[in-house]
């Protein structure tokens, strides 16, 4: 099971808590999937925060607060400090959004915020792109986990750049890697795990499914299968056919 900042979590599925049709469905999705980490956020308190916290505590998972919606270093750093106090954890999913339509990270601001927060004692989980140089700089800044996107948040497009993600895996063999965002189907999650990623973080694909509880279970099975496949050392792909049945000994019948 994946180890993040010295903590082993119970599942390679990291699941968001937003957009479910009801709190009961949210809890059901966590139960059916056995997700090991729940992502949460901070928003202006309008009466629902205390009840929601009770629900999250009941899930029995590790909690990973995010800085979703932050567009600047200052906003993200301030939000991280607030999250550390409210949730009682050093873990922070660091999002610094740079583009309104794609929600892709502002990697320059992300790097600066990651450096500040790492020096401040946070365990930073940066939502980043698969850019090797950026990821290297994030590691230099103190990040011990990298979370490249598969595709834009909420798009469900899957792994847009499998080459880039494979390359990232090869370049950072010792760093826990999580595909965060863009996953739409269990097969996308399985693909990431087959590539050797340590975990998958998703939300919309489960919450917006017709049956979120059943879909959460489907993701858990796919992630388990993908991980098992990775450990079993998949065969290399090839362009031309290679007969699997022995050619020698075939009866001469023509």
């Amino acid at each position, binding site marked *: 099971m994946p180890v993040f900042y010295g903590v082993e979590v119970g599942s390679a599925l990291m699941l968001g808590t937003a957009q479910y049709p009801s709190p009961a469905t949210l809890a059901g999705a966590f139960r059916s999937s056995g997700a090991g980490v729940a992502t949460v956020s901070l928003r202006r308190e309008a009466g629902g*925060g205390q009840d929601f916290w009770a629900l999250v505590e009941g899930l029995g998972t590790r909690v990973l607060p995010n800085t979703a919606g932050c567009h600047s270093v200052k906003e993200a750093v301030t939000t991280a400090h607030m999250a550390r106090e409210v949730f009682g954890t050093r873990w922070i999913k660091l999002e610094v959004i740079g583009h309104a339509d794609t929600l892709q990270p502002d990697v320059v601001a992300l790097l600066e915020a990651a450096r500040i927060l790492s020096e401040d004692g946070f365990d930073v989980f940066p939502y980043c792109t698969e850019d090797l140089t950026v990821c290297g700089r994030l590691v230099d800044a103190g990040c011990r986990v990298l979370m490249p996107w598969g595709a834009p948040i909420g798009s469900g497009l899957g792994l847009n750049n499998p080459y880039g993600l494979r390359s990232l895996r090869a370049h950072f063999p010792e760093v826990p890697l999580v595909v965060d965002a863009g996953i739409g189907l269990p097969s996308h999650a399985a693909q990431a795990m087959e590539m050797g990623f340590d975990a998958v973080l998703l939300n919309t694909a489960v919450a917006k499914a017709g049956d979120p509880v059943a879909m959460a279970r489907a993701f858990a099975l796919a992630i388990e299968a993908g991980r098992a496949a990775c450990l079993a050392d998949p065969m290399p792909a090839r362009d031309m056919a290679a007969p699997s049945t022995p050619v020698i000994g075939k009866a001469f019948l023509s």
Partner: protein
Amino acid sequence: MTIVLNGESRETRAATLADLLHEAGFGPRVATARNGSFVPAGQRMATALQDGDRIEVVAPMQGG
């Protein structure tokens, strides 16, 4: 004195940030910022409010 609490203008007699949280009836699990800067829970009693302060009070919420 008039402050801005979570984006809405508010008349308050609270002298400190801790007083304001009590006055507004917030639950225990919240975090606070004053004029864009984080105020740890332990400093709320010592944080005097001034006219025009922008106060943010946030709580756990759903997130991805």
